[in-house]
């Protein structure tokens, strides 16, 4: 059992400080070599440039998690009655400060953004069933919403008689203005037959293709257009862009903490603005805490491993070992991913799918047209090919042309229809991106085309 310490250690002694304000114990910040040590468990030889999908967790946090897991194994009753509730409150308090929420009652901890979407949409489903919303009332979503969210809308809204307005955002994209005008148009069109729009679901950072959305402005537009409630799906946000939920002004806001905030899988925050409307949210897994408010309901959904939800204090300690804390990390990741993105685009004769200011810690880099990414299957096959043949882990996005004659072109004048979503997290080095660069150049040299790949079963 490796790092599990013996009974008698009390990690809680380390955690009785206000972690957000804590300065590093030593005058020096964490070094490159210490960072590599923290991520030594990452598979060597793999260019891991997909932090966006499953996140990452440093060794010291994994060790802290094992200590909490050990406490459960040692004496589970004592753990559940005496330790778990206090530690969850601690985590929630730190999260509240992190996102600038007004009150701790607004912060619930759930497994992931997928769960949060189910909570919000189930609430909408009840409103339809209980006649507060009328059949045909609408929910608005972006065309590139995460697949799980789309399915959740089907499962809870469509099934209950609600309708869905889909707003298409352009990609590649050049400015926030394009998004704002498309959204305004799409929302107006959707309301055109007098439908009431009950909920808008807006990504803060879209997944594929990945772009930072001007949510604050979109929330304003929603309010102007009479949308009842706004739910921001910010799965990628915490740890990759600054988050201020009061400034954003949405009713509901969810972000995963295991993607960019160094928590182990899985933990997410669900923020619900205090108002009479949001008081009727329930966790779908009902326990004896039913009716005590979403935050309390979410803190106990039966016996399970809650350890990943208890680590926020340790993660804040970790983050504060870096120069500038989380904001320093955010800035350096952003600068690095842009630099690497531009390097790749230059080498391949392509371009980025969005301007740098619309990129978080991820960037969409155009792939040379000769690779022939002409479908979602091609994108997935190419991703597998890169993993298997070149040991590069990076997700690929297929972007169909709006119009057969018009679209972004590469240096060879072919249309760019494939983009790689590269991520940069603290453990990445330039070699990861050089490896990717060389892999694609090799494929171009070999005359590779996606047609050569066979789909997996």
């Amino acid at each position, binding site marked *: 059992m490796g790092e599990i310490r013996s009974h008698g250690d009390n990690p809680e002694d380390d955690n009785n400080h206000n972690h957000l304000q804590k300065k590093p114990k030593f005058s020096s910040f964490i070094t490159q070599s210490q960072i590599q040590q923290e991520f030594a468990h990452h*598979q060597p030889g793999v260019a891991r440039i997909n932090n966006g999908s499953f996140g990452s967790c440093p060794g010291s946090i994994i060790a802290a998690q094992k200590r909490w897991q050990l406490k459960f*194994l*040692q*004496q*589970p009753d004592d753990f559940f009655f005496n330790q778990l509730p206090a530690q969850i409150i601690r985590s929630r308090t730190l999260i509240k400060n992190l996102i600038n929420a007004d009150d701790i009652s607004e912060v619930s901890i759930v*497994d992931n953004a997928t769960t949060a979407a189910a909570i919000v949409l189930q609430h909408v489903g009840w409103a339809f*069933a209980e006649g507060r919303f009328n059949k045909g009332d609408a929910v608005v979503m972006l065309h590139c919403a995460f697949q799980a969210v789309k399915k959740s809308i089907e499962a*809870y809204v469509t099934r209950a008689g609600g309708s869905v307005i889909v707003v298409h955002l352009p990609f590649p994209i050049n400015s926030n203005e394009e998004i704002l005008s498309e959204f305004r148009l799409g929302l107006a069109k959707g309301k055109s037959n007098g439908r009431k729009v009950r909920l808008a679901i807006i990504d803060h950072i879209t997944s594929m293709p990945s772009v930072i959305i001007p949510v604050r402005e979109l929330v304003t537009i929603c309010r102007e257009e009479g949308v009842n409630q706004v739910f921001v799906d910010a799965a990628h946000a915490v740890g990759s862009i600054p988050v201020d939920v009061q400034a954003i002004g949405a009713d509901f806001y969810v972000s995963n903490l295991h993607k960019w905030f160094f928590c182990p899988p899985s933990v997410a925050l669900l923020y619900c603005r205090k108002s009479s409307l949001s008081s009727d949210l329930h966790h779908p*897994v009902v326990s004896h805490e039913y009716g005590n408010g979403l935050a309390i309901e979410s803190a106990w959904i039966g*016996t399970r491993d809650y350890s990943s939800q208890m680590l926020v204090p340790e993660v804040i300690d970790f983050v504060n070992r870096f120069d500038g804390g989380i904001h320093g990390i955010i800035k350096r990741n952003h600068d690095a991913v842009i630099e690497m993105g531009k390097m790749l685009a230059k080498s391949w004769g392509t371009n980025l799918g969005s301007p740098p200011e619309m990129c978080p810690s991820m960037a969409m880099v155009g792939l040379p047209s000769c690779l022939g990414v002409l479908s979602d299957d091609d994108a997935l096959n190419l991703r597998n090919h890169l993993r298997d043949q070149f040991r590069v882990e990076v997700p690929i996005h297929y972007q169909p042309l709006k119009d057969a004659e018009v679209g972004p072109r590469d240096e060879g004048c072919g249309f760019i229809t494939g983009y790689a979503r590269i991520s940069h997290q603290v453990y990445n080095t330039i070699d990861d991106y050089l490896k990717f660069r060389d892999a694609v150049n090799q494929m171009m040299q070999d005359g590779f085309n996606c047609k050569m790949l066979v789909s997996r079963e």
Partner: protein
Amino acid sequence: MSSDDLSDNHYHHNTDEENGTITTTETLNNHNSSLCKKINLFHIDIRSEFSHHNPTVARINNGSFGSCPTSVIEAQQRYRLRFFQQPDAFYLNHLKPSILRSREAIKTLINANHVDEISIVDNATTGAAIVLQHVKWSFFESKFNAGDTAVMLHYAYGAVKRSVEAYVTRAGGHVIEVKMPYPVTSNNEIIRSFKNALELGKLNNRKVRLAVIDHITSMPSVVIPVKELVKLCREEGVDCIFVDAAHAIGSIEVDVQDIGADFYTSNLHKWLFCPPSIAFLHCRNPELSNLHHPVVSHEYGNGIAIESSWVGTRDYSAQLVVPEALEFVNRFEDGLDGIRKWNHEKVVEMAEMLVKVWGTNLGTPLDMCSSMAMVGLPACLGIRSDSDTLKLRSHLRDCFKVEVPIYYKQPKDGEVDPVTGYARISHQIYNTVDDYYRFRDAICNLVSSGFTCKVFQD
């Protein structure tokens, strides 16, 4: 072993320092339990397999949160490490086949017909939410009419009762609780009460749409005759028969085909040595039932088993070690059967010892006990409420380092000096007689010092 053996034996635990095994010898009778033979034969070092348990605590509450041997924890850690090493590869290449492996193992264990009938979920609480949400939709989509009834036991688990409130009552269903006397004396009492409830549920032209039946109730703990109750429900044409068997797997025999319910859920982290948390939800007819996991992912519509296998990024490692847990179990003579019998015999023996010393009674007859027993606490302790039981439990934990949950039984009118508190003692393979002697002595200590729960009112 005959019951004579149980009453005559003095069990003597000998900790062998050299090779770390615990051998139990009967000083009066040389027929060692066959389980002990196997322990020595195959060198299963129970002490090292449960070395993470706090050694100062008399841990006689396996029923609440279960337990997990070191071998299985280590297997789980290996899966977690693989995820941390390369999560994309883990998700794309390893997760699905590993979950399928676990589902196959469970299918065999519970005598299900086909692996499609087996979904893996976090816990029985989640299993209940899935079934009850389905019932909610049936009310909304007018398959069931407002006022139609749901029948459940009065002793149903608290979370399940709330779930019924959240999904069934809220959707227009009417809930009837089956009152059962406690202490309970026989299966017939239960069957009679249940029949009455079904009759009540049909009054005024209503239909009984849902029956929620515990296989082993939690507090107080009683093994319920589920097969007979399911049969009654079928005769009445109940649409949805759901067995909440949170405690069952690993403590009693489970044969889902024989039981015949529509849905059956049980936790594997309680009595089957899996880490927290994992449960299965068995669905007799997955295609027809249209169940959905409440956390909707891109797998929506692919069947409850597939939907449950992906509910967003999270740690699935506890769900992947069912084969390793069964491997552990099979190191014992007669495997799970042997462990079940051993635990039952020991808990019965310990329960009888305790009621004899305290002069009280058992709340549940021994033939309606699994690996848990309900032992009456001396009346002089003055347990007068649920709150008293929680405070007494904490007191036992803090001052005597005994971990045991306590049930409050309201006295009937006219009862003289009634037993109002029952301790639910568990026995799992890591327990020793000392655990129960410590409990025995703690209560004797409280009694002789004149302790009553009145002190909690201060």
